[in-house]
């Protein structure tokens, strides 16, 4: 047993060989893992609920960058995939004896157990003294998941504890290392959009900033384009960030933004909501006396519901509504559907490479200011619509032609689910 702990890098249960990944390290085959702080393994230094909260957060941090989710298992210790506990000296039936204050402060095993030396001064994440229990827990869970030590500056897998500020996150290389074992996060979205904020600089001229949002079920992510990752700590519940819109299952978001209009709409079912950016909540009644939510058929005559998705084309001042294989082009200034609508999606957005087309039932359609392009999402793939720049470079491209499908995770990184029990952390 000692050989397992000391002679081989830690890892999970003996899995079938198929689960073995790069470099001989093994990885869990399951995607939802259970964990438990053993009843006899609570620390004497921190309140019990604080210990469990820190461990829950530590597991959540790994699920924010992997397809893994972790749930706390209140059942008997034996049934949990990962068992954690605190001990001093000889502890929890472990043949490895802790050495007291200093040097070894925790260890982890391939079979998924983590022990903390309770002689060490473990402190909660908000403290800047002692040894941060959160950082040690994230490190040891990294071992359980199959990561070895790393001497790369900034890695959470460094063997030595380096006091730093209370806030820390899994950096790019740690994310890539764990994703080499478990793959990256994939999954469909309910909707995706860029949210524009217009601000006035101290000199009074207006600037526009934007953030990209992805919605899935009842939660959402803000995607930081400049850092190429989701915001630290996302996903969050939709209700926590967007007041007055449906709590889940949003079909589409449209931002009508012209010189004279700045209107943002969420669509779900046969109704739509207008969102007040300044007051950060949905309108109950807007300045034109429309009360919300409102029937789509009232606000957008000729548009069917429920929708698959929609996006606004600023150049043409058209909203493209998608339902099944059909596309409805809605002329916003004239407030009516174009006479030629509906048309088949394959006609309005033709495939550039034959038979490489989503055909019907899109999940999301999204104009990205970061990429200056429209993307159509379906499942875990996206199709980019040829822009005017593309057509200048390749005159043979059809208008609105779709480039071949690409995996979403190859362009938008770490949009990962977390276990529902940790969503509100």
């Amino acid at each position, binding site marked *: 047993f000692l050989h397992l702990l000391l002679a081989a*890098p*830690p890892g999970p249960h003996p899995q079938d060989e198929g689960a073995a990944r790069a470099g001989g390290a093994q990885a869990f085959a399951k995607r939802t893992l259970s964990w438990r702080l053993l009843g006899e393994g609570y620390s004497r230094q921190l309140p019990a609920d604080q210990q469990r909260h820190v461990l829950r957060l530590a597991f959540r941090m790994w699920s924010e960058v992997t397809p893994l989710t972790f749930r706390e298992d209140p059942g008997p210790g034996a049934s949990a995939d990962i068992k954690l506990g605190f001990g001093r000296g000889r502890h929890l039936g472990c043949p490895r004896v802790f050495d007291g204050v200093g040097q070894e402060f925790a*260890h982890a095993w391939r079979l998924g157990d983590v022990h903390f030396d309770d002689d060490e001064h473990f402190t909660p994440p908000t403290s800047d003294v002692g040894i941060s229990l959160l950082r040690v827990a994230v490190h040891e869970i990294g071992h359980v998941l199959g990561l070895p030590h790393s001497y790369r500056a900034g890695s959470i897998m460094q063997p030595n504890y380096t006091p730093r500020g209370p806030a820390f996150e899994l950096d790019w290389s740690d994310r890539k290392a764990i994703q080499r074992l478990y793959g990256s996060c994939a999954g469909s979205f309910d909707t995706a959009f860029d949210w524009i904020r217009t601000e006035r600089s101290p000199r009074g001229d207006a600037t526009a900033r934007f953030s990209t949002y992805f919605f899935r079920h009842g939660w959402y992510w803000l995607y930081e384009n400049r850092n190429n990752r989701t915001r630290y700590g996302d996903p969050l519940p939709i209700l926590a960030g967007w007041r007055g819109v449906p709590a889940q299952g949003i079909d589409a978001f449209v931002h009508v933004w012209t010189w004279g209009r700045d209107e943002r709409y969420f669509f779900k079912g046969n109704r739509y909501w207008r969102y007040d950016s300044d007051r950060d909540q949905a309108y109950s009644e807007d300045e034109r006396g429309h009360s919300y939510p409102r029937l789509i058929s009232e606000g957008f005559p000729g548009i069917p519901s429920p929708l698959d998705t929609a996006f606004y084309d600023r150049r043409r001042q058209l909203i493209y509504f998608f339902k099944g294989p059909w596309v409805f082009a809605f002329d916003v200034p004239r407030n009516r559907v174009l006479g030629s609508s509906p048309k088949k999606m394959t006609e309005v957005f033709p495939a550039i490479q034959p038979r490489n087309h989503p055909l019907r039932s899109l999940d999301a359609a999204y104009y990205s200011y970061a990429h200056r392009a429209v993307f159509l999402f379906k499942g875990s793939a996206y199709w980019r619509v040829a822009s005017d720049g593309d057509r200048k470079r390749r005159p043979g491209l059809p208008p609105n032609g779709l480039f071949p499908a690409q995996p979403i995770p190859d362009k938008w990184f770490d949009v990962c689910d977390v276990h529902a029990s940790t969503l509100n952390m």
Partner: protein
Amino acid sequence: EALFHSRDRSDRAPAPLRRAPPIAGLPAAQRFLSKYGWAPGPPGAGPRRDGPPEGPQGAALAQALRRFQEVNALPASGRLDAATLAAMNRPRCGVPDTRPPLPAASAAPRAPPPPPGPRPKARPKR
């Protein structure tokens, strides 16, 4: 149980604080190098009263020290100096750092490949 007499345990005697014995000399350093995978040989549960100290010796010790010094951005002298001892005494995780390279003369099968991820690099110089 930590001794106490009053109901609210306010007079509980603090548990005696256990301290890890500092790594202050060669035997302890040799055990450290074996324990954390910098040198071959099984780590013992503690220093043995009789017989030779455990862990690497001679050239193997120098090589193990040099590798350890390199990844800790210390001068790779292969000698046990104060800075190396200080690095060994820092708070750390109990999982081994790396797998020990098999001694060249060993008849044992080849060691498995190194752990996944980039090879350990020296910390950037300050």
